[in-house]
């Protein structure tokens, strides 16, 4: 796992006052899915069962700790919120019902609004917008379906899908993240 120095989720200690935004945790907790955050005891049961943490130094407790501390910029601009596999193991083990996975979704939505979405995620969202699905249709697929006696691939309702995405504001989010990419 390569991580650039300025984006390391381990961060640098000591934490400086100017990096702390005390209201951050309340902003997160006020969102749908973020409610459990303030109950976190930082016991670490989440980190102990994390499958990503079993192969790299990834710790959900550290992410929660950073949010509770108010390290908004560090949390929203680094990879730490995008490495979660959303497998819910931590959620199952959490004695405080923090729902880390849902907190991560809130944080990802916040980061995306600010143009910090992980490039891979933006690419996949664009793929869905373009093809109506996360994997493209090919001639081979059509042939395989025919061999299996399956009906031809259905139309992915692309117009409805795009309409919903546009009205919900996804186009704006993607644009915000593309701009960020170009200036890098």
């Amino acid at each position, binding site marked *: *796992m390569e991580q650039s120095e300025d984006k390391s989720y381990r961060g640098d200690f000591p934490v400086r006052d100017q990096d702390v935004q005390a209201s951050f945790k309340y902003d997160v907790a006020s969102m*749908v*899915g973020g409610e459990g955050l303030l109950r976190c005891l930082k016991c670490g049961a989440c980190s102990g069962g994390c*499958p*990503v943490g*079993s*192969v790299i130094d990834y710790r959900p407790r550290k992410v929660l700790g950073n949010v509770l501390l108010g390290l908004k910029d560090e949390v929203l601009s680094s990879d730490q919120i*995008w*490495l979660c*596999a*959303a*497998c*819910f*193991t931590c*959620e*199952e083990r959490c004695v405080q019902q923090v*729902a880390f*996975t849902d907190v991560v*979704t*809130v944080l*990802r*939505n916040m980061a*995306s609004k600010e143009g910090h*979405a*992980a490039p*891979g*995620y933006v690419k*996949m*969202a664009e793929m*869905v917008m373009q093809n*109506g*699905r*996360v*994997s*493209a*249709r*090919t001639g081979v*697929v059509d042939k*395989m*379906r025919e*061999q*299996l*006696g*399956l*009906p031809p691939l*259905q139309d*992915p*309702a*692309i117009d*409805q*899908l795009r309409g*919903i*995405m546009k*009205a*919900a*504001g*996804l186009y704006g*989010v*993607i644009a915000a*993240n593309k701009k960020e990419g170009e200036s890098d």
Partner: protein
Amino acid sequence: MLFRGCITPVRHPAYEAATVLVLERLGISVVPLNNTNCCGAQYIESLNERAFLALGGRILALAEQDGKDILTLCGACAGSLKHTKKLLDRRKRARSEVNSLLGKEGLEYTKNVRVKHLLDVFEEDISLEALHAAITNPYAGIRLAAHYGCYLTRPFDELNSPAIKIPTIMDTVIRIAGGRPVEYEGKSRCCGSPILIMDETVANNVGLNKIRNMREAGAAGIVTACTNCDIQLSQVQYGNGMEKSRLPVMTLLQFLGPAMGISDDDLGMYMNRTSPSRIIESLTGVR
């Protein structure tokens, strides 16, 4: 009501075919849910939850129109539609927001649909006796590792039965078909597939750890119940010097099919990335 999702029909049509054939034998008719969109799991959800809820809401509303339950084959679709349903059912504001987006098409979601993953159907709608009766050519005790995946069993709230903390349904089905389910370390652990987009090495290591644990427990093959898991546990076994020790991977329904006398070709066995022969050859009867 089969919601095919967006990955299964393209990347794993054999899973779709096997589902229709096997469920038919078990007395469940599968009707395709048409005109649907991608459920938005993971990617759209992470970028804009509002769009995600509306995409899921549209699928729920379409099934509601037809008055049938939703059946999903993919764990991600099951998880995301159950999650969407939970949020929309609980929150009036989110629901009316979604409905205002769906209104342009004349659709409305009114909380009256159930979302079931394939394993829920085995758990709730198929009796073990009926399954027993359908097995005409059982396996001769081949040792198999069941991989449940994440969204099928977690989180343990009202989305999934709270009584089933440690899922056993796949093991039960394997046993009824004549296989021997093995217990292995990290059985409920993730396959690593969702992390592929961020870091392939990490994702593959998560998957390979899982396979190592299965092998150590003596498994001769892997049985899955999710499109993403199936693809992931197959692909991680390539390019890692595992040529001689690859474990065959197949979905639960592809595993059941031959034991019910359904032909390998109809089940798309030849489309599997890993060779299914070690599993199929362990059937007791003459084929």
